């Protein structure tokens, strides 16, 4: 397939959808003003935007898959020519909308580690599956030749056997979707809107019902909470439909989704770090989510750009289930007490959390003294959060090449497994007051999506923090 090709004509739908997404107000104006003369005047413009422009932009996109590089040409007024050597590819993502399935077509996106924001370097709206397969084939061949220079490595990689696989079974699936915290932002927005409504509503109900207004408020709030939660559950069920992770050779493939089947392929050596994440609900039922931190945006639709590898695994099984996928991780949970915050130092984290909460609470109490009791709950929560952070701070070196760090923020417990080769820099931080008590903050920087992920362990002893700093300084060559 070394000839320059265009995407399938059905790719037009994608360009059309983009035009509609950007220019839908124009459609509404035309419909609303269909009687007036200037509404009619807009119709040629609409034809240009919704018919001609998608046609030309579809026409302008072409690609070529050569044995050495992937070429991608796009742009109407300004032509872009993208030239990507296979060894530079971070992720290959395939998305298949249900309407493309009968035609055996899919969307293919290819990303490199370049800092270019937001969108993938190559996006082919509708191509046959053999395009992704061919890119994958060349990419594996390129990596095989760069990693070892033996004679037989030039031989194209035959499809290797599946080394590990994971499918989301019924019980973990329900555990996963029912314990998501994704509904909280939706809930806050909905409650904000709701807070504006009841005044008029209750006034209209009349004074005889006024004594029930508090009850109405609470029931309404609860109903909104349940609705937001159900909405998230349904969304997650759709998004994680038929979730499947497999490892073949040196790459991991994750596929999921009902209406849009989303398949992401990542070479093992492109993984920046692994993270176990456990929100407050999942702590109650002792499951956690395993995510891969990547240097690309392919997983932007997942939770904070991380590719979810194992959605719901019990705490005891986490390491054992991860190891077949990622070789450099330990098979059993390591002891993380080397970098812990104990005894007197826990108070420091509690104190900081209280100080942060104290200012808004003081201001709120000043303005609304009658609600004081309610605001004091914030202090109790802050106290608990400080204790939670202290109890969950942990970390240790596993062998000479892997650092494991655990933090607790906002009632979420996160454990990072970071290989030495992927740590970009390490920072120590010590204030003048911490000098006296021999304490230090340690920050480990890792690439995450297109930005930096700073993993900070606070109030370690100076010896603990410096031992990691020195380990990094002397070993990272």
């Amino acid at each position, binding site marked *: 397939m070394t000839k320059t090709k265009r995407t399938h004509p059905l790719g037009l739908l994608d360009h059309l959808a983009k035009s509609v997404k950007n220019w839908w107000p124009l459609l509404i104006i035309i419909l609303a003003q269909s009687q007036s003369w200037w509404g009619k005047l807009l119709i040629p413009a609409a034809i240009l935007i919704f018919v001609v422009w998608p046609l030309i932009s579809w026409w302008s996109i072409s690609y070529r898959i050569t044995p050495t590089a992937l070429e991608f040409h796009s742009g109407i007024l300004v032509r872009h020519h993208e030239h990507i050597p296979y060894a530079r590819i971070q992720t290959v993502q395939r998305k298949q909308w249900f309407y493309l399935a009968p035609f055996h077509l899919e969307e293919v996106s290819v990303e490199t580690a370049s800092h270019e924001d937001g969108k993938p370097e190559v996006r082919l709206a509708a191509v046959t599956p053999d395009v992704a397969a061919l890119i994958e084939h060349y990419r594996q061949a390129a990596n095989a030749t760069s990693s070892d220079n033996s004679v037989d490595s030039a031989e194209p990689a035959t499809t290797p056997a599946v080394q590990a696989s994971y499918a989301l079974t019924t019980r973990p699936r329900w555990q996963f979707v029912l314990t998501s915290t994704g509904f909280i932002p939706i809930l806050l927005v909905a409650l904000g809107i709701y807070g504006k409504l009841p005044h008029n509503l209750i006034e209209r109900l009349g004074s005889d019902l006024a004594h029930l207004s508090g009850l109405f408020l609470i029931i309404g709030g609860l109903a909104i909470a349940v609705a937001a939660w159900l909405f998230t559950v349904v969304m997650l069920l759709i998004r994680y439909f038929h979730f499947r992770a497999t490892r073949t050779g040196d790459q991991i493939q994750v596929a999921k989704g009902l209406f849009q089947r989303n398949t992401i392929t990542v070479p093992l050596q492109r993984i920046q770090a692994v993270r176990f994440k456990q929100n407050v609900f999942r702590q109650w039922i002792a499951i956690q989510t395993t995510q891969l931190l990547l240097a690309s945006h392919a997983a932007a639709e997942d939770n904070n750009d991380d590719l979810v590898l194992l959605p719901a695994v019990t705490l005891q099984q986490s390491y054992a289930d991860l190891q077949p996928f990622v070789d450099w991780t330990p098979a059993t949970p390591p002891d993380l007490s080397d970098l812990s915050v104990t005894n007197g130092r826990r108070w420091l984290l509690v104190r900081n959390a209280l100080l942060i909460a104290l200012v808004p609470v003081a201001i709120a109490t000043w303005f609304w003294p009658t609600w004081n009791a309610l605001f004091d709950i914030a202090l109790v929560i802050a106290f608990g959060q400080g204790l939670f952070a202290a109890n969950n701070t942990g970390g240790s070196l596993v062998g000479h090449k892997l650092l494991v760090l655990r933090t607790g923020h906002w009632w979420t417990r996160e454990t990072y497994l970071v290989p030495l080769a992927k740590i970009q820099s*390490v920072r120590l931080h010590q204030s003048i007051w911490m000098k006296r008590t021999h304490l230090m903050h340690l920050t480990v920087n890792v690439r995450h999506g297109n930005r930096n992920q700073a993993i900070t362990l606070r109030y370690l002893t100076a010896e603990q923090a410096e031992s990691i700093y020195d380990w990094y300084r002397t070993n990272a*060559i």
Partner: protein
Amino acid sequence: MSQTQHPLPNRIKLIWGISAIGSLLVLLVVTGLFWLAQTYWDWAAWLTVTMLVIAIGEPIIETALIPYRYRFTRYMISDTAVEMQAGFIFKKRVAIPIARVQNVTLNAGPLLQWRKLSKVTVATASTTHTIEGLELATAEQLRDQIMRLAREARHDQN
């Protein structure tokens, strides 16, 4: 960490001093605008007074802190890593292995050029770190060293 810690070149103090004067001028101009707004549009007088206090106070504090800023800023370049240290009240220390460096940028405004100094920014795949001023020769030497090591060390990682 103690073997070859370098302070920044002494001349950087002069440049910090000049930039404090620069802040003074800018802030005085802003204060002038507030005063004009007060006379013509009846803005509150306390705004102008506050601005004047800031305009005079900020450069004084900035100037007063220069000796400390200078004394507690250190950098170290070895064969394998760049380290930077700054601050006394909040002391920060960062290690960047040369193998992780993606690019080095030398950057010099008119003042730094005049004193033959250069700002050096070291970028990794995720973070950037800046040394505020280095001798031009040292800066170029650092850049060349990093680029040479980067060529040797990069086994197509990342």
